[in-house]
């Protein structure tokens, strides 16, 4: 599975397009529904060119990418993918009428891969799309995918809905816990990301976001119903607020094929989570949440249950009913706010490495009882950190025997050590199950090459973030 981003040169594709440009369709009768739908959406289509901040080999770099989006209101709100507009220093947009303008990133949501931009207009009303509904989609419905495949703006492709509610398991950092996906055979390529999937009424029913590398005509769009909720939250608050109780849910068929068995299997309970504090155990069957029955016989049913929990106001106490050993029990769980999937990442150029915030997920993977420290996300070859033996994946828990609670602590300690110029700085780091000491020799900093001077940056090949590159294996 890969996210859609523009790769490769567009020159070859443009040459091909020129050869075909002499035979523009005039619209024979059978084409009318397609033409009408296209005409309704095309004026609101946006070609998006963000410059993303990428962390590679212990350095922060800027990389231009290309994606798609669509205007949803006259004042210029634009919907696109988080993997297009996330971590962008600035975003340049090209409208259908070729006007170019910058856009502000209003908010992003990694859990649904949705982002909202605001075009920097001069007050004029802009054309915008009509949002449809995705709850009642059917396989076989004709759809159009619109956007900038391989950077070729204003492209339209046609296909049908192959499956309206495809479940896609997590793949590395690509996760979609709260939604299934619209699978379509309309041609979608890198660069289509964030573009609209449109029905023949000219309504947007999905946001194109994923393809399977190497497969033909298997693309996926985020259903518009969930996108609309996220967009509203991002415009209102800049982020999506969700509850977390710390359970791994599994469909009932993981335990039994008996169709009479209702509920959802609790496959796991996170340590020190609200669910664990409330006494939830793996193997319990979740029957109700806040008085409402929940049921997931198949994995496609799980996102709705997760969303049911996520939609609870964080910090509120809810009653959940469980089936345990044949008896129904009620437990009260006080939910917590769901943490961001990805934390802040910063470059510490003087020491030659980059570090990311330790999110609850990273803490769980590292067997830390709670999020603390910073995660080394890259080490610059030849820099002081590399020379001292610091490695990608290390978690720095202490500096000079003072605890590093979070990224802010680390930034302050870093700034302090740089200012005082103390020669030796001691890190206490966790590397997998082991701890070790790493001593940064700041006296080596002065003679070190400046960041970016010692070798050329990676080729500007266009443009996939490391996370997305990590997901190239495809969905099986």
């Amino acid at each position, binding site marked *: 599975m890969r996210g859609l981003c523009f790769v490769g040169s567009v020159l070859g594709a443009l040459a091909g397009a020129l050869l075909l440009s002499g035979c523009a369709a005039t619209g024979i009768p059978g084409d009318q529904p397609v033409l009408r739908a296209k005409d309704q959406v095309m004026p609101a289509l946006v070609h998006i060119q963000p410059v993303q901040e990428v962390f590679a080999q212990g350095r922060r770099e800027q990389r231009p990418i290309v994606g798609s989006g669509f205007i949803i209101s006259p004042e210029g709100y634009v919907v696109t993918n988080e993997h297009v507009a996330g971590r962008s220093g600035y975003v340049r947009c090209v409208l259908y009428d070729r006007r170019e303008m910058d856009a502000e990133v209003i908010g992003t949501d990694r859990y649904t891969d949705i982002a909202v931009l605001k075009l920097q207009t001069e007050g004029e009303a802009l054309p915008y799309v009509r949002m449809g509904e995705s709850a009642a989609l059917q396989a076989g419905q004709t759809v159009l995918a619109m956007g900038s495949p391989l950077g070729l703006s204003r492209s339209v492709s046609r296909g049908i809905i192959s499956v309206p509610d495809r479940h896609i398991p997590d793949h590395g950092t690509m996760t979609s816990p709260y939604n299934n996906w619209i699978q379509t055979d309309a041609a979608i390529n890198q660069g289509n990301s964030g573009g609209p999937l449109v029905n023949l009424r000219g309504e947007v029913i999905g946001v194109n976001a994923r393809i399977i590398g190497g497969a033909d005509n298997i693309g996926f769009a985020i259903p518009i119903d969930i996108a609309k909720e996220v967009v509203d939250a991002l415009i209102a608050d800049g982020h999506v607020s969700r509850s977390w109780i710390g359970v791994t849910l599994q469909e009932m068929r993981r335990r039994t094929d008996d169709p009479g068995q209702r509920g959802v*299997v609790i496959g796991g309970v996170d340590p020190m989570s609200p669910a664990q504090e409330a006494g939830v155990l793996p*193997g319990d069957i979740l029957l109700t949440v806040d008085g409402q029955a929940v049921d997931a016989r198949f994995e496609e049913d799980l996102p709705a249950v997760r969303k049911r929990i996520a939609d609870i106001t964080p910090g509120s106490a809810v009653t959940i009913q469980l089936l345990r050993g044949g008896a129904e029990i009620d437990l009260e769980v006080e939910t917590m706010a769901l943490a961001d999937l990805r934390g802040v990442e910063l470059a510490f150029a003087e020491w030659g490495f980059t570090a990311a915030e330790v999110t609850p997920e990273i803490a*769980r*993977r590292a067997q830390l009882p709670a999020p603390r420290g910073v995660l080394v996300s890259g080490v610059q070859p030849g820099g002081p950190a590399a020379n001292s033996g610091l490695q990608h994946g290390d978690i720095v828990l202490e500096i000079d025997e003072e605890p590093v609670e979070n990224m802010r602590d680390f930034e302050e300690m870093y700034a302090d050590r740089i200012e005082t110029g103390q020669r030796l700085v001691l890190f206490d780091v966790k590397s*997998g*199950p*082991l701890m070790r*000491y790493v*001593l940064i020799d700041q006296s080596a900093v002065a003679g070190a090459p400046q960041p970016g001077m010692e070798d050329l940056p990676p080729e500007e090949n266009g443009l996939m973030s490391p996370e997305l590159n990590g997901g190239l294996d495809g969905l099986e």
Partner: protein
Amino acid sequence: MGWNRLAFAAAATLACVAASAQSGAFAQSFVRGVYDDLAPGLCLVSYNYEVTNPATGQTARNSSHALGVLVSSDGLIMVRGHMVLDHMTPFNIRVAIPGENGDALLPAQVVRKPPDVNVVFLEIQGDHGPFSYVSFDGGPELQLGESVLLVGKLGETLDNVSAIGFRRVGAILEQPRRTYALDDPLPLGYVGAPVVNGAGQVVGVTGYDLSLGEGGDLHVRSGHPIIYQSNLFQRYIDDPHSEPEDDPLGDSWLGVFTQPLTDNLAEYWDLPPEGGIVISSIVDGSPAAAAGFQRGDVVTHFNGVAVRARQDRDVLGFTGLIRAAPTGPPVPYRLLRNGEVVEGEVTLVARPRTHLDAEQFEDAVFGMTLREITTDLRLALNLPQDIQGVIVQNVRPGGWAQLAQIRPGVIVIGFGGHPVTNLSDYRDAVEQVLEERPAEVALFGRVGQVTGFFRIEPRWDQYDEQ
């Protein structure tokens, strides 16, 4: 084979000296003589091997070849040490020995991999001898720049063609023991090749890396060929089945991870110049944990010996001290904790089993092989002590486990409603399930940091037919 050392050596020495004066190379007649004598003692070893991913327990199989040197008339063979590694086990070993009527292909088994020299000994199975073999001279010293002759197998190909090569002694290392490094990498087929000096003496074999106990590639750096002098391995040729207790490195275990006390670290902590070694991690439940060792302790003396480690490779000396110390009687130590001297005693135990020696259970009914979680595996998987279970090593294609999407690396915590903390629990749980014959069996397991259920649907009718 009867390598007529005395007679040949004298002639060869003369020839060599004469030739060196002219071209710096061995005389052709000398080379030919060495080749004729040694080549019949070489063979080509073909084998399959199983590689285990320590993080998941998953195994993969592949095939390879190696140059073999017959070292006894009854079929003892010496090959490069990398044929057997911690995570790599050879099997299906076949030895091709050239003969008048083509190659004889004979089965062989691993006899041992000595802990103090990076070679592996194989033994041909069955009574096929006597074989021609190579005998070694007792480790004569070599000089820097001295030319040596190698006899190997061209390209390690199945054509089984013996070939010659020339190298010089490019460096002589004195630590951790005298080691002769060659001046140029070795092509395929020359790793493990007999090395002959200008006097016609077979002084050793080529190889890469010291034994792990000596530091592996820490001293010589990977990719740099060296000579294992024959005095390092001759005793294993003389007595290939000697008891492992004779291993010189010992088997005692403390249960710590260490790092050198570099000059910078000593300066940072304001420690005296005598140095020591830093305890960076302590294994839960180990002798070190029981004795109260703490992270950041700097061990200065162990078992009466001063400890000093300034570089990574120096850490090996401490490892050697621990391994050689006795298990049972308390071993004294002295360390610095926050600058203060602390003295104490620790009772060492035998090194815990590794995943290679782990107990396994092949569950033929559900179609998977399970293995106990050894200390090294627990560390590799970053598994906390409170998680007990067994790990799936393999699943049989088409078996019930595979159909339930169980895969290698899954840690089984429960089976059929019964908790599983070890292989014995698992066996009992399977027995119970076989008696009960439920339509569905829930396996509760852990994958990475997540737990969950797998539903197995046994086909009891098929089982009964079998």
